[in-house]
Protein backbone atom coordinates (compact mmCIF):
# COMPACT_ATOMS: atom_id res chain seq x y z
CA UNK A 1 0.00 0.00 0.00
CA UNK A 2 1.77 3.12 -1.22
CA UNK A 3 0.36 6.60 -1.51
CA UNK A 4 1.29 9.24 -4.06
CA UNK A 5 2.64 12.61 -2.86
CA UNK A 6 -0.69 14.23 -3.83
CA UNK A 7 -2.60 11.84 -1.59
CA UNK A 8 -0.22 12.46 1.29
CA UNK A 9 -0.63 16.21 0.79
CA UNK A 10 -4.41 15.77 0.77
CA UNK A 11 -4.32 13.72 3.98
CA UNK A 12 -2.16 16.38 5.64
CA UNK A 13 -4.69 19.06 4.70
CA UNK A 14 -7.45 16.78 5.94
CA UNK A 15 -5.78 16.37 9.34
CA UNK A 16 -5.32 20.14 9.57
CA UNK A 17 -8.97 20.78 8.71
CA UNK A 18 -10.20 18.16 11.17
CA UNK A 19 -8.08 19.51 14.01
CA UNK A 20 -9.25 23.04 13.23
CA UNK A 21 -12.92 22.00 13.21
CA UNK A 22 -12.58 20.01 16.41
CA UNK A 23 -10.64 22.50 18.46
CA UNK A 24 -12.43 25.61 17.24
CA UNK A 25 -15.83 24.11 17.97
CA UNK A 26 -14.73 22.54 21.27
CA UNK A 27 -13.46 25.88 22.55
CA UNK A 28 -16.56 27.79 21.46
CA UNK A 29 -18.81 25.02 22.80
CA UNK A 30 -17.11 25.21 26.17
CA UNK A 31 -17.49 28.99 26.28
CA UNK A 32 -21.23 28.38 25.95
CA UNK A 33 -21.46 25.03 27.76
CA UNK A 34 -19.71 25.96 31.00
CA UNK A 35 -22.05 28.87 31.82
CA UNK A 36 -25.04 26.71 30.88
CA UNK A 37 -23.77 23.88 33.08
CA UNK A 38 -23.28 26.31 35.95
CA UNK A 39 -26.81 27.66 35.53
CA UNK A 40 -28.18 24.11 35.50
CA UNK A 41 -26.49 23.26 38.80
CA UNK A 42 -26.88 26.56 40.61
CA UNK A 43 -30.56 27.11 39.80
CA UNK A 44 -31.78 23.59 40.48
CA UNK A 45 -34.04 22.86 43.43
CA UNK A 46 -31.85 22.76 46.51
CA UNK A 47 -29.00 24.44 44.60
CA UNK A 48 -27.04 27.49 45.66
CA UNK A 49 -29.58 29.85 44.09
CA UNK A 50 -32.68 27.88 43.19
CA UNK A 51 -34.73 29.13 40.23
CA UNK A 52 -36.54 25.88 39.36
CA UNK A 53 -38.57 27.39 36.50
CA UNK A 54 -35.46 28.61 34.66
CA UNK A 55 -33.70 25.33 35.34
CA UNK A 56 -36.59 23.36 33.91
CA UNK A 57 -36.89 25.43 30.70
CA UNK A 58 -33.15 25.31 30.12
CA UNK A 59 -33.13 21.56 30.69
CA UNK A 60 -35.88 21.06 28.12
CA UNK A 61 -34.12 23.22 25.50
CA UNK A 62 -30.88 21.32 26.03
CA UNK A 63 -32.61 17.97 25.73
CA UNK A 64 -34.38 19.12 22.55
CA UNK A 65 -31.11 20.13 20.89
CA UNK A 66 -29.46 16.92 22.01
CA UNK A 67 -32.19 14.74 20.57
CA UNK A 68 -31.81 16.05 17.00
CA UNK A 69 -29.54 13.65 15.03
CA UNK A 70 -26.37 15.49 14.09
CA UNK A 71 -26.68 14.87 10.36
CA UNK A 72 -30.19 16.39 10.38
CA UNK A 73 -29.07 19.31 12.54
CA UNK A 74 -26.21 19.95 10.11
CA UNK A 75 -28.72 20.46 7.30
CA UNK A 76 -31.31 22.28 9.40
CA UNK A 77 -28.86 24.99 10.43
CA UNK A 78 -27.49 25.60 6.93
CA UNK A 79 -29.14 29.06 6.74
CA UNK A 80 -27.57 30.04 10.06
CA UNK A 81 -24.21 28.71 8.91
CA UNK A 82 -24.41 30.75 5.70
CA UNK A 83 -25.18 33.87 7.72
CA UNK A 84 -22.28 33.41 10.15
CA UNK A 85 -19.55 31.94 7.94
CA UNK A 86 -20.69 33.10 4.47
CA UNK A 87 -20.53 29.59 2.99
CA UNK A 88 -21.93 26.15 3.71
CA UNK A 89 -18.90 24.27 2.43
CA UNK A 90 -15.56 23.45 4.01
CA UNK A 91 -14.18 23.11 7.51
CA UNK A 92 -15.21 26.57 8.72
CA UNK A 93 -18.82 25.93 7.76
CA UNK A 94 -18.92 22.89 10.03
CA UNK A 95 -18.08 24.89 13.15
CA UNK A 96 -21.55 26.45 13.76
CA UNK A 97 -23.49 23.15 13.59
CA UNK A 98 -20.79 21.43 15.64
CA UNK A 99 -21.15 24.12 18.31
CA UNK A 100 -24.94 23.90 18.29
CA UNK A 101 -24.71 20.13 18.72
CA UNK A 102 -21.85 20.09 21.22
CA UNK A 103 -22.70 23.00 23.54
CA UNK A 104 -25.79 21.31 25.05
CA UNK A 105 -23.85 18.08 25.37
CA UNK A 106 -21.03 19.89 27.13
CA UNK A 107 -23.52 21.70 29.37
CA UNK A 108 -24.67 18.29 30.63
CA UNK A 109 -21.08 17.07 31.06
CA UNK A 110 -20.21 20.19 33.04
CA UNK A 111 -23.38 19.82 35.09
CA UNK A 112 -22.48 16.28 36.09
CA UNK A 113 -18.93 17.34 37.00
CA UNK A 114 -20.24 20.10 39.26
CA UNK A 115 -22.66 17.73 40.91
CA UNK A 116 -19.73 15.62 42.04
CA UNK A 117 -18.51 18.49 44.23
CA UNK A 118 -19.13 17.61 47.87
CA UNK A 119 -22.21 19.43 49.18
CA UNK A 120 -20.48 19.76 52.55
CA UNK A 121 -17.70 21.87 51.04
CA UNK A 122 -20.28 24.20 49.50
CA UNK A 123 -22.01 24.44 52.86
CA UNK A 124 -18.68 25.28 54.51
CA UNK A 125 -18.15 28.09 51.99
CA UNK A 126 -21.64 29.39 52.71
CA UNK A 127 -20.93 29.30 56.44
CA UNK A 128 -18.01 31.64 55.78
CA UNK A 129 -20.29 34.11 54.08
CA UNK A 130 -19.32 33.34 50.48
CA UNK A 131 -21.53 34.85 47.77
CA UNK A 132 -22.99 32.78 44.94
CA UNK A 133 -20.30 34.02 42.57
CA UNK A 134 -17.54 33.25 45.05
CA UNK A 135 -18.89 29.72 45.52
CA UNK A 136 -18.92 29.17 41.74
CA UNK A 137 -15.50 30.69 41.15
CA UNK A 138 -13.63 29.50 44.23
CA UNK A 139 -15.35 26.23 45.07
CA UNK A 140 -17.29 24.66 42.17
CA UNK A 141 -14.80 25.30 39.35
CA UNK A 142 -11.53 24.42 41.15
CA UNK A 143 -13.00 21.44 43.02
CA UNK A 144 -14.54 20.03 39.82
CA UNK A 145 -11.41 20.63 37.72
CA UNK A 146 -10.19 17.01 37.39
CA UNK A 147 -13.68 15.84 36.48
CA UNK A 148 -14.07 18.74 34.02
CA UNK A 149 -10.83 17.70 32.31
CA UNK A 150 -11.99 14.10 31.95
CA UNK A 151 -15.24 15.47 30.53
CA UNK A 152 -13.30 17.67 28.11
CA UNK A 153 -11.43 14.67 26.72
CA UNK A 154 -14.68 12.79 26.21
CA UNK A 155 -16.40 15.82 24.67
CA UNK A 156 -13.50 16.54 22.30
CA UNK A 157 -13.45 12.99 20.98
CA UNK A 158 -17.22 13.05 20.55
CA UNK A 159 -16.91 16.28 18.57
CA UNK A 160 -14.22 14.60 16.47
CA UNK A 161 -16.73 11.89 15.60
CA UNK A 162 -19.34 14.51 14.66
CA UNK A 163 -16.81 16.37 12.51
CA UNK A 164 -16.14 13.22 10.48
CA UNK A 165 -19.89 12.95 9.86
CA UNK A 166 -19.85 16.48 8.50
CA UNK A 167 -17.62 15.23 5.70
CA UNK A 168 -20.71 13.63 4.16
CA UNK A 169 -22.23 17.02 3.39
CA UNK A 170 -19.15 18.78 2.10
CA UNK A 171 -17.52 19.52 5.41
CA UNK A 172 -14.01 18.53 4.36
CA UNK A 173 -11.50 17.13 6.79
CA UNK A 174 -10.61 13.46 7.25
CA UNK A 175 -14.27 12.46 7.24
CA UNK A 176 -14.70 14.09 3.84
CA UNK A 177 -11.73 12.16 2.44
CA UNK A 178 -13.03 8.89 3.82
CA UNK A 179 -16.44 9.44 2.22
CA UNK A 180 -15.30 10.90 -1.11
CA UNK A 181 -12.42 8.51 -1.83
CA UNK A 182 -13.04 5.52 0.36
CA UNK A 183 -16.78 5.25 -0.20
CA UNK A 184 -17.77 6.94 -3.46
CA UNK A 185 -14.62 5.84 -5.36
CA UNK A 186 -14.23 2.44 -3.71
CA UNK A 187 -10.67 3.23 -2.57
CA UNK A 188 -10.78 1.01 0.49
CA UNK A 189 -7.15 1.72 1.41
CA UNK A 190 -7.97 5.46 1.63
CA UNK A 191 -10.86 4.71 3.92
CA UNK A 192 -8.71 2.59 6.23
CA UNK A 193 -5.96 5.18 6.26
CA UNK A 194 -8.26 8.03 7.30
CA UNK A 195 -9.99 5.88 9.89
CA UNK A 196 -6.62 4.84 11.29
CA UNK A 197 -5.60 8.48 11.60
CA UNK A 198 -8.88 9.31 13.34
CA UNK A 199 -8.29 6.45 15.78
CA UNK A 200 -4.83 7.79 16.59
CA UNK A 201 -6.15 11.33 17.13
CA UNK A 202 -8.86 10.04 19.48
CA UNK A 203 -6.26 8.06 21.45
CA UNK A 204 -3.98 11.06 21.79
CA UNK A 205 -6.75 13.45 22.90
CA UNK A 206 -8.14 10.94 25.40
CA UNK A 207 -4.68 10.20 26.81
CA UNK A 208 -3.79 13.87 27.20
CA UNK A 209 -7.11 14.65 28.88
CA UNK A 210 -6.84 11.79 31.36
CA UNK A 211 -3.23 12.62 32.12
CA UNK A 212 -4.04 16.28 32.81
CA UNK A 213 -6.93 15.24 35.03
CA UNK A 214 -4.70 12.87 36.99
CA UNK A 215 -1.94 15.38 37.46
CA UNK A 216 -4.30 18.14 38.56
CA UNK A 217 -6.23 16.00 41.05
CA UNK A 218 -4.93 16.47 44.59
CA UNK A 219 -7.23 13.88 46.10
CA UNK A 220 -5.11 10.91 45.11
CA UNK A 221 -1.51 10.88 46.19
Amino acid at each position, binding site marked *: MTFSPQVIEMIKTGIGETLFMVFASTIISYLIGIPLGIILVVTEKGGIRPIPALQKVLGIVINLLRSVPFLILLIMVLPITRKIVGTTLGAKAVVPPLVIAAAPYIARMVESSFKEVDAGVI*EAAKSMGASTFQIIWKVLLPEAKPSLLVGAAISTTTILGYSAMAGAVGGGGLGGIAINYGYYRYQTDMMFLTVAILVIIVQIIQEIGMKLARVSDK*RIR
Partner: protein
Amino acid sequence: MAAEETIIQLRNMGKEFKTANGPVVALDDINLDIQRGEIFGIIGLSGAGKSTLVRCINMLEVPTSGEVVFEGENLAAMSESGQRKARQSMGMIFQQFNLLAQRNVVKNICFPMEIAGTPKKQARERAMELLKLVGLEDRAKAYPAQLSGGQKQRVAIARAIATNPKVLLCDEATSALDPNTTKSILQLLKQINRDLGITVIVITHEMAVIEAICDRVAIIDQSHIAEVGKVSDIFSEPKSRIGRQLILGDAVTNVKFDVARKYRIIFDGRESMEPVIANMILACKVPVNILYASTKDIGGKAVGQMIVQLPEDETDANRALTYLKSVEIPYEEVREHDI
Protein backbone atom coordinates in the same frame (compact mmCIF):
# COMPACT_ATOMS: atom_id res chain seq x y z
CA MET B 1 -17.93 33.45 82.98
CA ALA B 2 -17.55 36.43 85.25
CA ALA B 3 -19.73 38.94 83.44
CA GLU B 4 -22.74 37.26 81.91
CA GLU B 5 -23.61 38.73 78.58
CA THR B 6 -25.81 37.11 76.02
CA ILE B 7 -24.22 36.81 72.58
CA ILE B 8 -26.82 34.64 70.86
CA GLN B 9 -30.45 34.51 71.73
CA LEU B 10 -33.00 32.23 70.13
CA ARG B 11 -36.55 33.40 70.68
CA ASN B 12 -39.54 31.17 69.93
CA MET B 13 -37.57 29.86 66.99
CA GLY B 14 -39.15 27.20 64.82
CA LYS B 15 -38.24 25.48 61.58
CA GLU B 16 -40.58 23.58 59.35
CA PHE B 17 -39.53 21.68 56.25
CA LYS B 18 -41.93 21.26 53.39
CA THR B 19 -41.79 17.73 52.06
CA ALA B 20 -43.84 15.73 49.61
CA ASN B 21 -45.73 14.24 52.57
CA GLY B 22 -46.64 17.63 54.01
CA PRO B 23 -44.77 19.89 56.43
CA VAL B 24 -42.35 18.35 58.92
CA VAL B 25 -41.53 20.23 62.11
CA ALA B 26 -37.79 20.08 62.74
CA LEU B 27 -37.71 22.61 65.56
CA ASP B 28 -40.52 24.04 67.62
CA ASP B 29 -40.51 27.00 70.00
CA ILE B 30 -36.79 26.97 70.77
CA ASN B 31 -35.67 29.48 73.40
CA LEU B 32 -31.99 29.66 74.29
CA ASP B 33 -29.57 32.24 75.62
CA ILE B 34 -25.92 31.62 74.90
CA GLN B 35 -23.45 33.64 76.96
CA ARG B 36 -20.36 35.29 75.55
CA GLY B 37 -17.24 33.22 76.22
CA GLU B 38 -18.90 30.00 77.30
CA ILE B 39 -18.76 26.55 75.77
CA PHE B 40 -22.35 25.61 75.20
CA GLY B 41 -23.35 22.07 74.33
CA ILE B 42 -26.43 20.92 72.50
CA ILE B 43 -27.03 17.20 72.80
CA GLY B 44 -29.71 14.97 71.40
CA LEU B 45 -30.28 11.70 69.64
CA SER B 46 -30.02 11.66 65.87
CA GLY B 47 -33.07 13.19 64.26
CA ALA B 48 -33.78 15.35 67.31
CA GLY B 49 -33.14 18.52 65.30
CA LYS B 50 -29.76 19.57 66.65
CA SER B 51 -28.06 19.94 63.28
CA THR B 52 -30.93 22.07 62.04
CA LEU B 53 -30.69 24.15 65.21
CA VAL B 54 -27.02 24.98 64.70
CA ARG B 55 -27.67 25.82 61.04
CA CYS B 56 -30.39 28.22 62.09
CA ILE B 57 -27.88 30.08 64.25
CA ASN B 58 -25.83 31.09 61.18
CA MET B 59 -28.79 31.13 58.80
CA LEU B 60 -27.64 28.21 56.67
CA GLU B 61 -31.21 27.20 57.40
CA VAL B 62 -33.66 30.04 57.65
CA PRO B 63 -36.03 29.61 60.61
CA THR B 64 -39.69 29.65 59.65
CA SER B 65 -40.69 31.43 62.85
CA GLY B 66 -39.15 33.32 65.74
CA GLU B 67 -35.90 35.23 66.02
CA VAL B 68 -32.19 34.58 66.05
CA VAL B 69 -30.53 37.49 67.80
CA PHE B 70 -26.77 37.75 67.39
CA GLU B 71 -25.13 40.63 69.26
CA GLY B 72 -28.44 42.44 69.51
CA GLU B 73 -29.45 42.06 65.87
CA ASN B 74 -32.10 39.76 64.50
CA LEU B 75 -30.39 37.75 61.76
CA ALA B 76 -33.63 36.44 60.31
CA ALA B 77 -34.70 40.00 59.47
CA MET B 78 -31.37 40.94 57.88
CA SER B 79 -30.71 41.31 54.16
CA GLU B 80 -28.80 38.51 52.48
CA SER B 81 -25.59 40.47 52.31
CA GLY B 82 -26.02 41.38 55.97
CA GLN B 83 -26.37 37.71 56.81
CA ARG B 84 -23.25 36.90 54.83
CA LYS B 85 -21.36 39.56 56.75
CA ALA B 86 -22.67 38.20 60.06
CA ARG B 87 -21.54 34.70 59.08
CA GLN B 88 -18.00 35.96 58.89
CA SER B 89 -18.27 36.49 62.65
CA MET B 90 -19.26 32.86 63.12
CA GLY B 91 -16.88 30.06 62.20
CA MET B 92 -18.16 26.55 61.69
CA ILE B 93 -16.61 23.09 61.69
CA PHE B 94 -18.22 19.88 60.54
CA GLN B 95 -18.21 16.14 61.14
CA GLN B 96 -16.78 15.51 57.67
CA PHE B 97 -14.29 18.41 57.92
CA ASN B 98 -15.36 19.80 54.53
CA LEU B 99 -11.94 20.97 53.44
CA LEU B 100 -11.39 21.95 49.81
CA ALA B 101 -9.77 18.82 48.37
CA GLN B 102 -7.96 20.69 45.59
CA ARG B 103 -6.33 23.26 47.88
CA ASN B 104 -3.43 22.63 50.19
CA VAL B 105 -3.57 23.31 53.93
CA VAL B 106 -2.43 26.95 53.82
CA LYS B 107 -4.77 27.80 50.97
CA ASN B 108 -7.66 26.15 52.80
CA ILE B 109 -7.02 28.38 55.79
CA CYS B 110 -6.72 31.41 53.50
CA PHE B 111 -10.10 30.61 51.93
CA PRO B 112 -12.40 32.46 54.39
CA MET B 113 -10.00 35.40 54.31
CA GLU B 114 -10.21 35.50 50.50
CA ILE B 115 -13.97 35.64 50.87
CA ALA B 116 -13.71 38.42 53.43
CA GLY B 117 -11.29 40.33 51.15
CA THR B 118 -8.18 40.14 53.33
CA PRO B 119 -5.00 41.09 51.40
CA LYS B 120 -3.12 37.99 50.20
CA LYS B 121 0.10 38.50 52.08
CA GLN B 122 -1.65 39.27 55.34
CA ALA B 123 -3.87 36.21 54.90
CA ARG B 124 -0.85 33.96 54.39
CA GLU B 125 0.85 35.25 57.51
CA ARG B 126 -2.31 34.73 59.52
CA ALA B 127 -2.66 31.21 58.09
CA MET B 128 0.87 30.29 59.17
CA GLU B 129 0.17 31.71 62.62
CA LEU B 130 -2.97 29.58 62.91
CA LEU B 131 -1.16 26.49 61.69
CA LYS B 132 1.25 26.94 64.55
CA LEU B 133 -1.67 27.32 66.95
CA VAL B 134 -3.20 24.00 65.84
CA GLY B 135 0.21 22.31 65.74
CA LEU B 136 0.49 21.62 62.02
CA GLU B 137 3.07 24.13 60.81
CA ASP B 138 5.04 21.32 59.11
CA ARG B 139 2.04 20.28 56.99
CA ALA B 140 1.43 23.67 55.36
CA LYS B 141 1.92 22.37 51.81
CA ALA B 142 0.05 19.09 52.28
CA TYR B 143 -3.30 18.40 50.64
CA PRO B 144 -6.27 17.20 52.72
CA ALA B 145 -6.03 13.69 51.22
CA GLN B 146 -2.61 13.38 52.83
CA LEU B 147 -3.86 14.18 56.34
CA SER B 148 -5.41 12.03 59.04
CA GLY B 149 -8.91 12.76 60.34
CA GLY B 150 -7.61 14.60 63.39
CA GLN B 151 -5.25 16.71 61.29
CA LYS B 152 -8.06 17.57 58.89
CA GLN B 153 -10.21 18.76 61.77
CA ARG B 154 -7.31 20.86 63.08
CA VAL B 155 -7.01 22.51 59.67
CA ALA B 156 -10.79 23.01 59.65
CA ILE B 157 -10.59 24.66 63.07
CA ALA B 158 -7.77 26.94 61.92
CA ARG B 159 -9.84 27.83 58.87
CA ALA B 160 -12.96 28.47 60.94
CA ILE B 161 -11.23 30.95 63.24
CA ALA B 162 -9.14 32.65 60.55
CA THR B 163 -11.42 35.68 60.29
CA ASN B 164 -11.46 36.16 64.08
CA PRO B 165 -15.05 35.09 64.57
CA LYS B 166 -16.82 35.64 67.86
CA VAL B 167 -18.55 32.28 67.77
CA LEU B 168 -17.39 28.83 66.69
CA LEU B 169 -20.14 26.37 65.76
CA CYS B 170 -19.12 22.71 65.94
CA ASP B 171 -21.47 20.28 64.24
CA GLU B 172 -20.58 16.76 65.45
CA ALA B 173 -16.96 17.81 65.05
CA THR B 174 -15.53 14.75 66.76
CA SER B 175 -18.04 12.11 65.67
CA ALA B 176 -15.85 10.81 62.86
CA LEU B 177 -12.74 10.59 65.05
CA ASP B 178 -11.32 7.91 67.31
CA PRO B 179 -11.43 8.47 71.11
CA ASN B 180 -7.85 9.71 71.47
CA THR B 181 -8.12 12.12 68.56
CA THR B 182 -11.47 13.27 69.93
CA LYS B 183 -9.80 14.10 73.22
CA SER B 184 -7.09 16.17 71.55
CA ILE B 185 -9.56 18.05 69.35
CA LEU B 186 -11.73 18.83 72.39
CA GLN B 187 -8.64 20.11 74.20
CA LEU B 188 -7.91 22.36 71.22
CA LEU B 189 -11.45 23.72 71.29
CA LYS B 190 -11.15 24.39 75.01
CA GLN B 191 -7.84 26.14 74.46
CA ILE B 192 -9.30 28.32 71.72
CA ASN B 193 -12.22 29.21 73.95
CA ARG B 194 -9.95 30.08 76.85
CA ASP B 195 -7.16 31.89 75.02
CA LEU B 196 -9.06 33.65 72.27
CA GLY B 197 -12.33 34.14 74.12
CA ILE B 198 -14.34 32.64 71.28
CA THR B 199 -17.78 31.41 72.30
CA VAL B 200 -18.05 27.75 71.31
CA ILE B 201 -21.29 25.95 70.53
CA VAL B 202 -20.93 22.19 70.38
CA ILE B 203 -23.50 19.89 68.78
CA THR B 204 -23.09 16.25 69.65
CA HIS B 205 -24.84 13.00 70.42
CA GLU B 206 -22.10 11.92 72.82
CA MET B 207 -22.43 12.77 76.50
CA ALA B 208 -18.66 12.36 76.84
CA VAL B 209 -18.07 15.42 74.65
CA ILE B 210 -20.38 17.54 76.80
CA GLU B 211 -18.74 16.33 80.00
CA ALA B 212 -15.28 17.03 78.66
CA ILE B 213 -15.59 20.68 77.67
CA CYS B 214 -19.00 22.26 78.08
CA ASP B 215 -20.04 24.78 80.71
CA ARG B 216 -23.73 24.51 80.01
CA VAL B 217 -25.83 22.12 77.99
CA ALA B 218 -29.22 22.01 76.32
CA ILE B 219 -30.82 18.64 75.76
CA ILE B 220 -32.95 18.57 72.65
CA ASP B 221 -35.56 15.94 72.00
CA GLN B 222 -38.19 15.66 69.29
CA SER B 223 -37.77 19.25 68.09
CA HIS B 224 -37.99 20.73 71.59
CA ILE B 225 -35.52 21.76 74.26
CA ALA B 226 -36.06 19.22 77.03
CA GLU B 227 -33.83 20.94 79.57
CA VAL B 228 -31.04 23.49 79.86
CA GLY B 229 -28.54 24.02 82.63
CA LYS B 230 -25.03 23.71 83.95
CA VAL B 231 -23.43 20.44 82.91
CA SER B 232 -22.68 19.37 86.48
CA ASP B 233 -26.29 20.01 87.55
CA ILE B 234 -27.82 18.17 84.63
CA PHE B 235 -25.41 15.33 84.96
CA SER B 236 -26.08 14.73 88.62
CA GLU B 237 -29.80 15.34 88.39
CA PRO B 238 -31.31 15.09 84.93
CA LYS B 239 -34.95 16.10 85.09
CA SER B 240 -36.20 15.11 81.68
CA ARG B 241 -36.74 11.60 80.45
CA ILE B 242 -34.36 12.13 77.56
CA GLY B 243 -31.77 13.55 79.97
CA ARG B 244 -31.88 10.38 82.02
CA GLN B 245 -31.65 8.32 78.89
CA LEU B 246 -28.58 10.17 77.62
CA ILE B 247 -26.81 10.15 80.96
CA LEU B 248 -27.80 6.65 81.94
CA GLY B 249 -27.19 5.60 78.37
CA ASP B 250 -24.08 3.53 78.92
CA ALA B 251 -25.49 2.09 82.14
CA VAL B 252 -28.48 0.83 80.23
CA THR B 253 -26.38 -1.12 77.80
CA ASN B 254 -24.02 -2.40 80.47
CA VAL B 255 -26.45 -3.50 83.13
CA LYS B 256 -28.97 -6.29 83.06
CA PHE B 257 -32.04 -4.51 84.29
CA ASP B 258 -34.55 -7.23 84.98
CA VAL B 259 -33.88 -7.22 88.71
CA ALA B 260 -36.00 -5.51 91.38
CA ARG B 261 -35.02 -2.71 93.80
CA LYS B 262 -32.53 -0.91 91.63
CA TYR B 263 -31.48 2.48 92.94
CA ARG B 264 -29.41 5.17 91.34
CA ILE B 265 -27.10 6.93 93.77
CA ILE B 266 -25.77 10.27 92.68
CA PHE B 267 -22.43 11.75 93.63
CA ASP B 268 -22.30 15.45 92.96
CA GLY B 269 -18.67 16.06 93.68
CA ARG B 270 -18.46 16.42 97.43
CA GLU B 271 -18.64 12.81 98.64
CA SER B 272 -16.23 11.17 96.27
CA MET B 273 -13.62 11.17 99.02
CA GLU B 274 -15.90 9.29 101.41
CA PRO B 275 -16.42 5.54 101.12
CA VAL B 276 -20.20 5.98 101.00
CA ILE B 277 -21.22 2.49 99.98
CA ALA B 278 -18.83 0.79 102.34
CA ASN B 279 -20.09 2.94 105.22
CA MET B 280 -23.68 2.14 104.28
CA ILE B 281 -23.03 -1.60 104.33
CA LEU B 282 -21.24 -1.38 107.66
CA ALA B 283 -23.89 0.81 109.24
CA CYS B 284 -26.93 -1.07 107.97
CA LYS B 285 -25.50 -4.58 107.78
CA VAL B 286 -27.22 -5.18 104.45
CA PRO B 287 -25.65 -6.72 101.34
CA VAL B 288 -25.62 -4.43 98.32
CA ASN B 289 -25.06 -5.50 94.76
CA ILE B 290 -23.32 -2.88 92.62
CA LEU B 291 -24.68 -3.12 89.08
CA TYR B 292 -22.99 -0.13 87.55
CA ALA B 293 -20.68 2.65 88.65
CA SER B 294 -19.01 5.54 86.95
CA THR B 295 -17.27 8.68 88.09
CA LYS B 296 -16.34 11.48 85.78
CA ASP B 297 -14.34 14.64 86.05
CA ILE B 298 -16.60 17.51 85.16
CA GLY B 299 -15.03 20.91 85.44
CA GLY B 300 -12.61 19.64 88.09
CA LYS B 301 -15.30 18.04 90.25
CA ALA B 302 -15.77 14.33 90.58
CA VAL B 303 -19.30 13.62 89.55
CA GLY B 304 -20.66 10.13 89.32
CA GLN B 305 -23.45 7.70 89.66
CA MET B 306 -23.89 4.16 90.80
CA ILE B 307 -26.71 1.74 90.27
CA VAL B 308 -27.12 -0.69 93.13
CA GLN B 309 -29.48 -3.50 93.85
CA LEU B 310 -30.79 -3.48 97.43
CA PRO B 311 -31.94 -6.57 99.33
CA GLU B 312 -35.32 -8.15 98.52
CA ASP B 313 -36.38 -7.73 102.14
CA GLU B 314 -38.22 -4.44 102.50
CA THR B 315 -37.01 -3.52 106.00
CA ASP B 316 -33.40 -4.12 104.95
CA ALA B 317 -33.86 -2.03 101.85
CA ASN B 318 -35.51 0.78 103.76
CA ARG B 319 -32.71 0.81 106.30
CA ALA B 320 -30.24 1.39 103.52
CA LEU B 321 -32.32 4.18 102.03
CA THR B 322 -32.75 5.84 105.41
CA TYR B 323 -29.00 5.77 105.79
CA LEU B 324 -28.49 7.45 102.40
CA LYS B 325 -31.01 10.11 103.35
CA SER B 326 -29.24 10.73 106.65
CA VAL B 327 -25.92 11.40 104.93
CA GLU B 328 -27.64 13.53 102.26
CA ILE B 329 -26.80 11.45 99.25
CA PRO B 330 -29.40 11.84 96.51
CA TYR B 331 -30.88 8.61 95.20
CA GLU B 332 -33.84 7.42 93.20
CA GLU B 333 -35.39 4.18 92.23
CA VAL B 334 -34.65 3.14 88.66
CA ARG B 335 -37.62 1.74 86.84
CA GLU B 336 -37.73 0.28 83.38
CA HIS B 337 -39.77 3.16 81.96
CA ASP B 338 -37.14 5.66 83.09
CA ILE B 339 -34.70 4.35 80.59
